[in-house]
């Protein structure tokens, strides 16, 4: 029997995607999410760190050891589970995109 997968919330997925390039600190994550979403997702510190906490608890991201004396910012990176989860999420979106193309839904907004 196939196990069901619960999709990540949009913000959490965007954070994972932002961290897929390199380890980043909070402000960089916010900027990357803004860029990745074409300016549609404007994260503030509240939403960002609330989600970061959840992702850390789930073991999907981890803090990177840095020089905390000189830099008050902490860097985060994806864990192995984080990479796996991101891959699963992207696979879901790939399948969804394929289905939408097969059903000729790609130009739905123009109809």
């Amino acid at each position: 029997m196939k196990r069901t997968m619960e999709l990540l919330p949009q913000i959490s997925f965007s954070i994972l995607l932002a961290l897929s390039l390199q380890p980043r600190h909070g402000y960089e994550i916010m900027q990357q999410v803004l860029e990745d979403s074409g300016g549609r997702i404007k994260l503030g510190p509240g939403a960002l760190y609330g989600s970061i906490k959840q992702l850390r608890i789930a073991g999907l991201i981890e803090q990177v050891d840095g020089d905390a004396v000189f830099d008050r910012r902490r860097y985060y990176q994806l864990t192995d589970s984080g990479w796996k989860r991101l891959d699963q999420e992207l696979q879901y979106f790939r399948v969804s995109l394929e289905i939408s193309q097969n059903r000729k839904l790609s130009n739905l907004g123009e109809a």
Partner: protein
Amino acid sequence: MFAFVYRLALRAYPRSFRAEYEQEMLVAFDELLVGATGPGGRFWLCLRSLTEVVQWAPRERLEVLNATISATPGVLVWGSASSLSLLAPFVLAACYRLHMLADREPNPQWSALLVHAEPYYERLLPAVALVIIFFSTILFLRNATMKNGYRYFLGLGLIGSLAIVALV
């Protein structure tokens, strides 16, 4: 000034969350402020960030509450007592209102009911409230390292009980 307001707003988060993320959040907010253009931009940034605090801080509070409360008999008893004591002032107010109505438009049935009920809600409820206050205070004094969940319940119980005493 915006940073000061934001720092104050972060007090809405539970202590454990602030210990872990407050500094980072302030740094990130400062960096966003630097990037915002003009006083209008800073104002909207501040407003948006405060809205996020309103949205996310209660979640964190609830999580802390859920993590610290276990369904032991003591918690269940005190939780129920606290909830009932919070409801009691409203019940009293409703009774009082009915009493006033009954006085204005005498209705033999209502009057008879209230005459019978009056001694109970006037004596029993303050007595219950005083018992709750007594035991809550003892619990507070006995257990200085009480978990947050208990504190919430006991705090609510105390407020409710004091409200009853003040009303009656």
